[in-house]
Structures are given as structure tokens and as C-alpha cells.
């Protein structure tokens, strides 16, 4: 058994390593001079935006949020709350990835088409505002996941300073807590289209059904979960600790999700895991 005293050196070593990587990030940002940050209101982009503001000054930073049907309203609220509280310069722009049939068909590289649209719009804003660099919030852990969106970013010259500095999600949560950011322990909140299995067309109606169901589960007190849209069926992935509670309150859970527009409500026995819809993809496709 590990005692608190024995664990302390490990925690201190982790903090020292994170702070070292933070210095690397600051050095990268210094080299940018000015930056536009793709800002979703998630843990990573919030952290990057605040560090950039502190390093470059607020006149040289612009956090930009792309709004579309796939962007969760709950995430939007967080994004706005943070920019207000921390004085981060912020702009919202509309994106129209749903109008692209290649995106709407929901292939396994769907994110490529979404990010191509996003970075195209944000690149235009950066040029109009005279901002030298466009950056995203990808971190060092993201290279291990299936992220076709990263290719779109790379093609459009988007930098990933958190990743380049070697900052992991754990580092970013630790440093965010030090900065007093409310997002430090926020669960990952990818776009709503990520709840649709590849091959099921992305439509505004399906995205709204997912959002309504997830809002209803949050109202019931659940926090770490996904509602996966399988047509007429919703498959709930819940954190193992929350599965017990869902089982105890099943009639309420089922009723809330069914009311969002699902005829069948299913409880995944394996629980919530990040990137679950990538399971079953061929390995080469996952790393493309």
C-alpha cells in the first residue's frame, strides 16, 4: 500500500515535470508574437488561451469559437463563462460543416472535413486581424487517439503548442488548477457528432436528440457519460461508478432518454470509455 508520505515525491516530480513543460510552452508562445486560438471552452483550449494572454498580452491573443449544431450548448456556456471571468478576448464565428455532404455522411474521417471548415474560417479571421499564428489545443496525449482532424490542422499550418511542449492532459489539469481555472476537472466534451457511429448520417435532428438526452442525464446528476445515437436506439455509456446509480434509478433514466426521441434505451455493459466509437476500426484507419 502506498502511504501519503511515499506518494509525495511522485507528486512533486510530476509537478516539476509539468512546470518544466509549461516553460517550454511559454517559450513557444513568445516566438509566436501573436496568436489566434481555436477555443472550444474545453480544458485544453481554456488553459492555452489563458497562458497565451499572460505571456503575450491580451492585445495579441484572440480566442475564437466555431458555432454549429454539433457544438454542445453546455460547452458553449463554459466557454463564455471563462472568457468573461478571465478577460480573454473572444470571438464567435459560424461554421457550416453540416452543409458538406462528405461530413454529413459521417465517414470515419468525418473530423477531417469538420476541421478543414473550422480552420479555413479561423485562418481567414487571423489574416484579417493580423495575428501571426493559428493554434489549437491538442495535447501530447492526443497523438495516441484516432484524430483525422489533426491532419486538417496540419494542412492549414495550425500549430499545436501544448503538444509541441509535451504537455499531457494530466499536466494541463494540474496547471489549470494552479491557475484557478474552473475547467481543471471538467470531463472531456467532444462535439455532438462524436456520439453517432460512423455511417449514421449527421443531421441537426440527431444532434439535438443527443443533446436533449445528455442534458436530461446531467439534470439527474450524472457527469461522466455519453449517449450514443444508433438510430432509434440510444446506447448509454456511463462511468462504472455512475452505472450503479443508473441501475438503481433505471425507470427515471430510461424515461428521460426516451423523451429525447429514442424508442429503445440501452445500457452499455462496458461503461464509458473515450473514443468508444473508434473501437472496431482497422488499426491503420485509426492512426491515419
Amino acid at each position, binding site marked *: 500500500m502506498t502511504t501519503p508520505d511515499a506518494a509525495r515525491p511522485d507528486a512533486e516530480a510530476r509537478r516539476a515535470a509539468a512546470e518544466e513543460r509549461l516553460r517550454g510552452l511559454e517559450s513557444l508562445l513568445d516566438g509566436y508574437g501573436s496568436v489566434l486560438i481555436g477555443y472550444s471552452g474545453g480544458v485544453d483550449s481554456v488553459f492555452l488561451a489563458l497562458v497565451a494572454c499572460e505571456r503575450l498580452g491580451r492585445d495579441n491573443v484572440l480566442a475564437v469559437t466555431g458555432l454549429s449544431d454539433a457544438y454542445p450548448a453546455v460547452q458553449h456556456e463554459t466557454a463564455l463563462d471563462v472568457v468573461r471571468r478571465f478577460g480573454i478576448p473572444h470571438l464567435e464565428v459560424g461554421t457550416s460543416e453540416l452543409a458538406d455532404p462528405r461530413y454529413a455522411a459521417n465517414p470515419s474521417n468525418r473530423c477531417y472535413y469538420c476541421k478543414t471548415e473550422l480552420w479555413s474560417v479561423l485562418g481567414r479571421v487571423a489574416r484579417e486581424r493580423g495575428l501571426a499564428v493559428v493554434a489549437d489545443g491538442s495535447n501530447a496525449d492526443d497523438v495516441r487517439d484516432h484524430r483525422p482532424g489533426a491532419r486538417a490542422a496540419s494542412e492549414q499550418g495550425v500549430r499545436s503548442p501544448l503538444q509541441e511542449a509535451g504537455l499531457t492532459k494530466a499536466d494541463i489539469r494540474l496547471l489549470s488548477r494552479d491557475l484557478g481555472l474552473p475547467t481543471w476537472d471538467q470531463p472531456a466534451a467532444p462535439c455532438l457528432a462524436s456520439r453517432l457511429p460512423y455511417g449514421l448520417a449527421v443531421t441537426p435532428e440527431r444532434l439535438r436528440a443527443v443533446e436533449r438526452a445528455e442534458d436530461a442525464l446531467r439534470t439527474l446528476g450524472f457527469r461522466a457519460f455519453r449517449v*450514443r445515437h444508433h438510430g432509434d436506439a440510444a446506447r448509454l455509456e456511463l462511468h462504472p461508478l455512475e452505472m450503479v446509480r443508473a441501475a438503481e434509478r*433505471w425507470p427515471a433514466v430510461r*424515461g428521460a432518454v426516451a423523451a429525447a426521441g429514442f424508442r429503445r434505451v440501452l445500457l452499455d*455493459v462496458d461503461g464509458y470509455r473515450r473514443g468508444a466509437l473508434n473501437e472496431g476500426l482497422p488499426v491503420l484507419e485509426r492512426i491515419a
Partner: protein
Amino acid sequence: MSDARRASDDSRAKTEYRVSREESVDDDRLASARAVLTDAGIDADVSAAGFAADVLAVAAPVTQLERVAALSERLKATGFRWIALEPPGDPG
């Protein structure tokens, strides 16, 4: 014969498996999944759910969650990507 084995056999003898009326009884995957559940003494309807019919829905009460979860990998090996319970309940 051990007590555990006898209990399992008794359970199987009493089990009546059904296939959802929406699914074809010719789906070999469902028959295989039923066999896995039968071996574990679980009595439940099974059906293929979702637009791609790649979710195995086991119509069992939530009290069976842990038992079905323990069979997840074996059930996936029958040809489903995801394994889920479909507990009964009034969606009211």
C-alpha cells in the same frame, strides 16, 4: 457432478430463450449470443439493435448488469461491436 455444474444445468433446463420479434431468427450471431448467455444461466431475450444492427441488446433487469458485463468479450466475439442491457421499464 459438482453442485455448481448441476445448478448451471438446472438453470439451462429451465431457460426459455426468445428472440425479439423485430429480428430474424436466422441471425447466427443472435443464436451464438444466446448460447453464451445460456452457458452462464442467464434467461433473457436478445436482439440486434441500432441502425447497423451491431449492438447486442440483452433484455434483462439491471440486476443482471455485472453478470452480463462479465460475458462482454465472449458476446462480442459472436459478431457484435457493443453489448448492452435493455432493462424493462415504463419510459413514461
